[in-house]
Structures are given as C-alpha cells and as structure tokens.
C-alpha cells in the first residue's frame, strides 16, 4: 500500500545580502518517489545534496516551494499539525545533542504524550513509557536517569523510543547510527529491523553509508545536488547501477570491493 507519494518536490531558499538583490538557491530541484507501508526507502547522498532538507519538509520544519507531498493520498499540508505529528516522527543523528540534558529518560520519552495526548491518565502514560522502553531494549529501572548517564547506543535507543511514543506510521531516520561505534551500530540496526516488523513501520532511512543502506532498505534513492540521480530497487542500485554518480559512490565506499 502506498503511504507517501512525492511528486516533483522543489525547495529553494532566498539568500539575502546587504546592497544586493536576493538570489535563489535550490536545495531540492526536482524529486519524486513513493514509499510503501512497512517498507524502507534508503536515501543516499553526500552533504549538501538535499537529504536533510527533505526530512525537514516532511516533519514540517520547512515548507516546500513547489510539488506535491501526498500522505495516504491527501496533501500533507492539509493535515493539521497535531495530526501530522502523530503520522510522521523523526530520529536524529547525534544522540548526544538531540536529548534534553535536564530531563530524565522518563520525561524525554513521555513528553510527546504530555503534549499531544493530554487526556491520558498518569497510570496510562507510565504504562506506555515502560512498554516502549522494553520495546527498544531499555530496562525500566533506568527511567529516572539523565541522558549523560547513558552510553551512546542507549541514548539512540531513547531517541527511538521517543519517536515511537505516538505510534507513528512513518519514521524518518536521519543517519541514526553514524555517530555510534561499529559494535553498537549493529545492535541499533537490528533493533530497528525488529521494530519495523513488530509495528509494521515505514522507514525513510537517510545515510551516506552504502553498506548500511543496503542492509536496511527495500528501495534506494540516490540524491546528487538536489536531484534524483537514481531510484530503484536495492538489487538494481547496488549490483547494477546505471548512473555515473551511483557508480562513483559504490567505488568510493571502503571495503565494498
């Protein structure tokens, strides 16, 4: 089932300088893709290619300049903010900076509920926090601890738990393992696969690491300078790339050969 369909998306920023006419920079020039329920789309590209801009537009932190974003057939902008928050959630790259250091693990995970589901009783909130902590492999006795008392991998688990609290359909994972050590990366990737199966989640997985993306994805979209360089099934992109830029990425990827 189609869950997200993006057609000819465009995003440009105005650069304003003193004494000069404002100039336009196109972060995303023309992007189209489809995301199916329960599947993972891997988004690969180097810094500045527009992948984070796309994530910002989908989470509502930026507005698009042109094109259509259809979520379950309805334009994303026509959903209310409260509705959108419950549909699309995000896990950030750096687990050291994306958690509030002054809040305990419990408060961090429960925050989305406090804000978006004010009618819940305290006991219900507690129950949901503890069950989500269990889902991401955190012991509930750790709930009173603060972010600095967790390791990098545990912190990323906290970030994932927070994103799962409102039971979203689409999870945007922006380089979720690139700040982690190799031995911890595997733990978190396995967890993400388990969660996807358990809750039938849809992932938009943003990364620059081709090995990670080929493990996680069903489809892959390669972006270059705001344009789609290549889009197709994982097998085609990794083992039979057509685009020169995709070939260059594959050749540069260490240990790939």
């Amino acid at each position: 089932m189609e869950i997200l369909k993006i057609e000819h998306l465009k995003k440009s920023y105005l650069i304003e300088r003193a004494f000069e006419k404002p100039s336009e920079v196109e972060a995303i020039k023309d992007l189209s893709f489809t995301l199916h329920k329960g599947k993972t789309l891997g988004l690969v590209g180097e810094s500045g290619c527009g992948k984070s801009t796309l994530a910002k537009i989908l989470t509502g932190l930026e507005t698009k300049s042109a094109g259509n974003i259809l979520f379950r057939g309805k334009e994303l902008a026509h959903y209310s903010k409260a509705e959108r928050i419950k549909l699309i959630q995000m896990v950030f790259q750096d687990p050291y900076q994306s958690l509030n250091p002054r809040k305990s693990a419990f408060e961090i995970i429960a925050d989305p509920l406090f804000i978006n589901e004010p009618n819940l009783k305290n006991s219900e909130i507690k129950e949901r926090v503890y069950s989500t902590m269990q889902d991401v492999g955190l012991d509930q006795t750790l709930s009173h601890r603060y972010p600095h008392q967790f390791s990098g991998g545990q912190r990323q688990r906290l970030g994932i738990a927070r994103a799962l609290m409102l039971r979203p359909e689409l999870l945007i994972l922006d380089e979720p393992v690139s700040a982690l050590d190799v031995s911890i990366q595997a733990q978190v990737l396995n967890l993400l696969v388990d969660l996807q199966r358990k809750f039938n989640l849809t992932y938009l997985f943003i990364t620059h690491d081709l090995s990670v993306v080929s493990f996680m994805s069903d489809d892959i979209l390669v972006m270059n300078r705001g344009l789609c360089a290549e889009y197709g099934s994982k097998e085609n992109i990794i083992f039979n790339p057509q685009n020169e830029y995709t070939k260059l990425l594959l050749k540069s990827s260490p240990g790939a050969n």
Partner: protein
Amino acid sequence: MNLLDVKNLHLNFNTEHQQTLSALRNVSFHLNMGETLGIVGESGSGKSLTNLAIMGLLPDNAKVMADQLTFEGRDLLSMNEAQKNQIRGKKISMIFQDPMSSLHPYLTIETQLTETMLAHLDISAKDASLHAIELLEKVGIKDPLKKLKTYPFELSGGMAQRVMIAMAISTQPKLLIADEPTTALDVTIQKQILDLLKELQIKNNMALMLVSHDLGLIAEYSERIQVMYAGEIVEARSKQDMLNKALHPYTEGLLKSRPTLYSDKSKAELYSISGIVPTLSNRPQGCQFAPRCHLKKDHCEKTSFAQTMHNKLSREQDIDKIAGHVFCLERTLRNEV
C-alpha cells in the same frame, strides 16, 4: 633499526581524587621506513592516546612509562621540550580528524603553511611562500597562488584537509600520523584524500600510521593492522592474515558486525557484540573484552592476557613475534592460534 619502536608502553592518568586511571597497557609495536600501519579501535580504545604519547602532546597529569619509545633510535621519553620540538612537525607530523577546527580561522592559508617551514627549515619567507605554492599543487589544489591568500572558512572540508596534508608534508617528515583523517568528510572525498596520502607516502618514502574506527577503510590502505580495545592491543597481524581469519573474538566481532553491500535484513540479522566498551574508571580486572566475549572462561576474568602474553613473548627478545600475535589466551589454550 626500526623507524619507530614502542615497547611495553603504559599510560596512567592521575585524577584530582588521588586516583590512578590506566589508559594504555602493554602497548608494543614498531614501524619501518615507508610502511603503513593501520590502527583500528572504537572510541575509548586508546588509539589517539597512543599517538599523543608518541608526539609528547599529553596533558600534565598523564604519566607515560615504556621499556622503549624510540624514534630513529633516539629516546622520545627522556627528551626535553626543545628537543621534542626539533622532531615534532619536522620528522613526525600529524593530521587531525576535523580540518576545519585544526586550522586557525583568523590566519591565511599562506601564513599557516609557511609557519611550519620557517620554524623547521632554514629558508627565507619568500622561498617558503614559493614552496607553499608547490605543496598546494602537490596535494591537488587548483589555482594555488589565489588559494594562498584565502582564509579557512572559504575552503570546503576536503580542501581544508588537503591544506592540512600540505602543511604536514612541508618538512618532508619520516613519519606521518593520520588520526581519523577522513571521518568528517564525504565518501567520494574520503577516497581522494586517502589516495593522495598513499601517493605522497610512496613519493617521499614516508611511514604512515593510519588511525580509524573503520576496519574496511584501514584494510584497504594498510599492510599491517593493529586492533586496539580498552587501552590494549588485542591483535596485530598482516592485513591478509587478519581478513582471512580474525583470531581475537573482538576482531572477529568487528569484522562480522559491519554490514556489507550483500547483507540484507530479510536474510539474517547483523552479528552484534553485546554490551559496551568499559569506561576508563570501570575497567575489568582480567581480559578487557571478557564481559562481552562469547568464548569467555573463568580464567579470562582473572588474568590480564596482554600482560601474560607480553611476559611470555618479551623473553623471546623479538618484537616481531609480539607484533604478529593475538592476545587471547582462551584461543591460545584451545590451540586455535
């Protein structure tokens, strides 16, 4: 004589609370002229501290002890600052992880590039500038004359790292330590930078210590690989041997847990090492890896294998035998080594 000899290096930190934390233990390795040694380890494994100990750049509360720490046969430990300055930047150079924060934001590329040369070589400012242009050309920067007058913020990450490399090779060092030189860069730029380092190494017959957390990257660019874990070397062998069959359970885990282009979530889940790297104040008694190891036996928690192996092998008086060894007693006892 080796270019660099490190035998039984120990590093302790004295804390404010009269505590002594042991950061490196029994670290022994050597490096020949023109050779590449890859050092792999996760954060907290001691790979950067090893480099800083060689360069003499550790803070005051660090205590370095070693049976031997020599560069070109000269003892680095007994040198005073002035003598160290004769070697640092001239014979041993270093490239750091983040080029943007290693360059001075207020000074032009020219000032920063010529500074090293003026300090170490007997040349005039004019000659140094001319040499700087040559260097920028060598590291593949187009229009070097114009780039000399620019400031770091005007350069991209890849360009800035090229400038760092130009600076590091300006005195034709014998040893170049590259500490995660490409971690902050994109993959296509990463390949360009490492290819450039390799090329310069061959041209200048320079020894290269390549430090990274990425075993795949290290394997592509070095002849010998040394894996570090929690302040100890756990396995040090030639690249072929290690990739054919990793002997230490930690190396084995590192190799297996990295996804490849062929791995697929629907076929099998990724191999993962459970647990985390012990922190400096929380290091176990015996084998550092024992709490996370699937081969763990009772004796693993009691004996420090690095120490045992060191004692056993140093009796043989042959550093090469240590350098080609695995510090896992459990596997040794089971005759798997």
